[in-house]
C-alpha cells in the first residue's frame, strides 16, 4: 500500500536535510510502528506523507497504491485516503467541530463524485462514532480543538479518522499527553478500525502505546533512515535496552 523509496527531504527555509535515504514498505492491513529517539525525523516523515509544503523532497519517491503522491497537495492526498492524526491538532476558532466534520466529509465525498450526506445520516454517523470514543455531543458544538484538553484533542483526531474512513492512517505520537484511561479509549478506537484493506503507521516514542495497539512490524528511525526493522519484540527490546544498542549496531 505504501512504498517509500530512498527518500531524501529537506526543510525548504534553511535547506536542512531531515530524511536521508529512507526506505519503508507497509502492506494493506498492516500496523507498522515507527520508533526512534527525538530528532530522528519521525514527525517530519508524517508531514511529508501528508504533503506539507515546508518540506521539499529532493530524491526518491513515495508510492501509495503504486502511484507517486509527490505531486499531490494535502487535500488531494487526504481525499485519496491518507489521514494524519496530528501530535498537536490545530485550533480552528469559530468553527464548530460538527460543522468541520460535515465540511470535511462532504468535501471528500465531492472529490469522489458522491452526493453530500443527508443531515440525518450525517448525525447518525457522528453520534455513533462519538459514543464509541466516549465523547459528549456537547463537545462537538464547541469550536474545533479550541480549549480542548490534550485528551479531548486526541479523541477528536480519532473521531475524524473514524468518520473519514481513510485507507492509510498515520498516527503521530497519538499517545503523548494522554492519561491511561484516555489512552485505552483512543487505542480501542484505532483497533476497531483495523481492517484488511487499511494500513496504519503508528509513530511513537514509547512501547506503552504498542501494548494497546499491537503492531505487525516495528521500524527504528534514526537520522532520517530506517536503521532496523523487526516484529513487535523489537519494541520490547528497545523499551528494555534503549536506542543506544540499535544505533551502535547500525553504525
Amino acid at each position, binding site marked *: 500500500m505504501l512504498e517509500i523509496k530512498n527518500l531524501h527531504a529537506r526543510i525548504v527555509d534553511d535547506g536542512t536535510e531531515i530524511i536521508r535515504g529512507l526506505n519503508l514498505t507497509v502492506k494493506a492491513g498492516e500496523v507498522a510502528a515507527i520508533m526512534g529517539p527525538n530528532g530522528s525525523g519521525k514527525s517530519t516523515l508524517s508531514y511529508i506523507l501528508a*504533503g506539507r509544503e515546508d518540506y521539499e523532497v529532493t530524491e526518491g519517491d513515495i508510492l501509495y497504491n503504486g502511484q507517486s503522491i509527490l505531486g499531490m497537495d494535502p*487535500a488531494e492526498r487526504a481525499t485519496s485516503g491518507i489521514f494524519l492524526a496530528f501530535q498537536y*491538532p*490545530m485550533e*480552528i476558532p*469559530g468553527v464548530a467541530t460538527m*460543522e468541520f466534520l460535515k465540511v470535511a466529509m462532504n*468535501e471528500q465525498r465531492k472529490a469522489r463524485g458522491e452526493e453530500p450526506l443527508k443531515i440525518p445520516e450525517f*448525525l447518525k454517523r457522528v453520534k455513533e462514532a462519538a459514543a464509541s470514543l466516549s465523547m459528549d455531543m456537547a463537545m462537538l458544538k464547541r469550536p474545533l480543538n479550541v480549549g480542548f484538553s490534550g485528551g479531548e484533542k486526541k479523541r477528536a483526531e480519532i473521531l475524524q479518522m473514524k468518520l473519514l474512513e481513510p485507507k492509510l492512517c498515520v498516527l503521530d505520537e497519538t499517545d503523548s499527553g494522554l492519561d491511561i484511561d484516555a489512552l485505552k479509549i483512543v487505542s480501542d478506537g484505532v483497533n476497531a478500525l483495523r481492517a484488511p484493506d487499511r494500513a496504519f503507521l503508528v509513530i511513537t516514542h514509547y512501547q506503552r502505546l504498542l501494548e494497546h495497539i499491537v503492531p505487525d512490524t516495528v521500524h527504528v528511525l534514526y537520522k532520517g533512515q530506517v536503521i532496523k526493522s523487526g516484529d513487535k519484540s523489537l519494541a520490547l527490546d528497545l523499551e528494555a535496552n534503549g536506542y543506544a544498542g540499535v544505533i551502535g549496531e547500525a553504525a
Partner: protein
Amino acid sequence: MPAVQETIDRVRKIDVDQYKYGFQTEIAMDKAPKGLSEDIIRFISAKKDEPSWMLEWRLEAYRRWLTLDEPTWARVHYPKIDFQDIYFYAAPKSTPGPTSLSDVDPELLKVYEKLGIPLREQEILAGVQKTDASELEEASDNVYKSGRVAVDAVFDSVSVVTTFKKELAQAGVIFCSISEAIREHPELVKKYLGSVVPTSDNYYATLNSAVFTDGSFVFVPKGVRCPMELSTYFRMNEKNTGQFERTLIIAEEGAYVSYLEGCTAPQRDENQLHAAVVELVALDDAEIKYSTVQNWYPGDAEGKGGIYNFVTKRGDCRGDRSKISWTQVETGSAITWKYPSCILRGDDSSGEFYSIAVSNGYQQVDSGTKMIHLGKNTSSRIISKGIAAGFSQNTYRGQVSAHRKATNARNFTNCDSLLIGDQCGAHTVPYMEAKNSTAQFEHEATTSKISEDQKFYVMQRGIPEEEAIALIVNGFVKDVIQQLPMEFAVEAQKLIGISLEGSVG
C-alpha cells in the same frame, strides 16, 4: 493561434467570469446631462415632482458643497473625481407610478430574478426556507422569526415597486421611497431629514443632500413592533451614474424595526461614485437594527474599475433607553469610506457596531464607527473583523468619546484583523476621548495571519485550499455573522468565500 489564445486568456482574466453579479441590463434610461450645476439639481427635483422647500434644501446643500474640499484623511488613494463627468440622475423608464408587478418593466424583473431577489409576492409569502444545517447551528439571538421580508427595490435611482405596503400600513408602518415620502408625508420628512446628518456634515453627505435621487423611508409609530424585516436591494446599473441614495428611518417611542440592505452591482470599467446617506432616529425605548451586506464591483485583477463607496451612516439614539445596532458585511467596492455611527444622546441608550470588512485584490477599505456618548449611563459595543488578502489595505478607524455630562459611559471595542498572504495590510486607528472620569472604555485589538499550520491541518482533512481559507475566515468572523438575520447570515458566509477566491496560490 497564440494570439487567439492570449485574447481568450485576457478575456477570461477580466472579472466577467469571476464576478458573479457582473452583467448589464438594457433598459431605456431617462437621464440628466452629465455634470453638476444648479440646473441639474432643478432637473432632478422637477423630475421627482418635489415641493419647493425640498428644492431649496437641495440648492442650499449644493451651495455649501461648492465651498467644501474633498477629505483626504482616510487611508485610501484614488484619482481625483471629475464631478462634471458624472450623470447625477438616471431613472429606468416605466409607466408612471406602477401599481403592481405587471406594470413593471419585465427586463427589470429579470434582473431581480438573476439576483435571486424574492420580489414576487408569492415567493415572499412562501417565506425564507431554513437551511439544512439549521439543526446544527447554535441558536442565535436573532433567529429569523416571521419568515417574511418586505422589499423596497431601488433600481438605479428610483423605487420601482414596493411590496407589502398594505400589511405594513395596517400596523401603521410607513415604508416607501424617500421621493414618495417627500410628496406624501412632507411633515415627517421636514422634521427628520438632515436632523442626524445635517446638510453641512461632510463633503459627500453634503453632495448627497444636493443630488440624492432616491432611497428608502421608514416610519414606525409609537409602540409598534414592525411585523416583518424591511429590505432594500440596491443595484447600480446605468454606466457612469453616480448613486446618491438617501435613507431615513424613524422609530417612535417603544417602536422596533429591523432593516436589511443588500447590494450587488454589474461590472464596468469606469469608476462609479456612490455617496449614500443613511439617517436613523430612535426615540424613547425604540430600537433600530440596520444590517448591510455590500458586494459592489471591487475592480479587476489589476485594480482597475470598481465602485467608490463614500457613505455617511449615522444613528441618533435621541430618546432615553433607545438602541441602535449596525451590522455590516463589506466585501465589495474598490474604495470603502464608511463609518456607521451612533450618537448616544438619550440617557441609558446603547449603540452597537458589528462589522466584517473583507478586502482582496487592490481594494482599499477605511471603515469603522463613531460612538458619541452624550447621555448618562450610555453604553456602546464595537466588534470589528477586518480580513485583508491580495494587495489590499484594510483600515479600522473608530472613535469613542464621552461628553463631560455622560456619566458612567461604557464602551467595549474589539478589533481583530486577519491577514492572508504578505502583500496586504491591516491597520487599526482607534481614537478614544473621555471628558468624564466615570467613563470606562475597553479596547482590544489583535492582528493575526492565517497560519500555514492551520491551513495544512484543514487541508489534511480533504478540504481544498480555497475552501480551507474560507472556513477559517468564516470562523474568524462568526461573532459578527451571528448578529445578522438568518437568511442574510447564510448569504454573507457565501459571499465571504467568493470574495476571497484567488487570494491564495
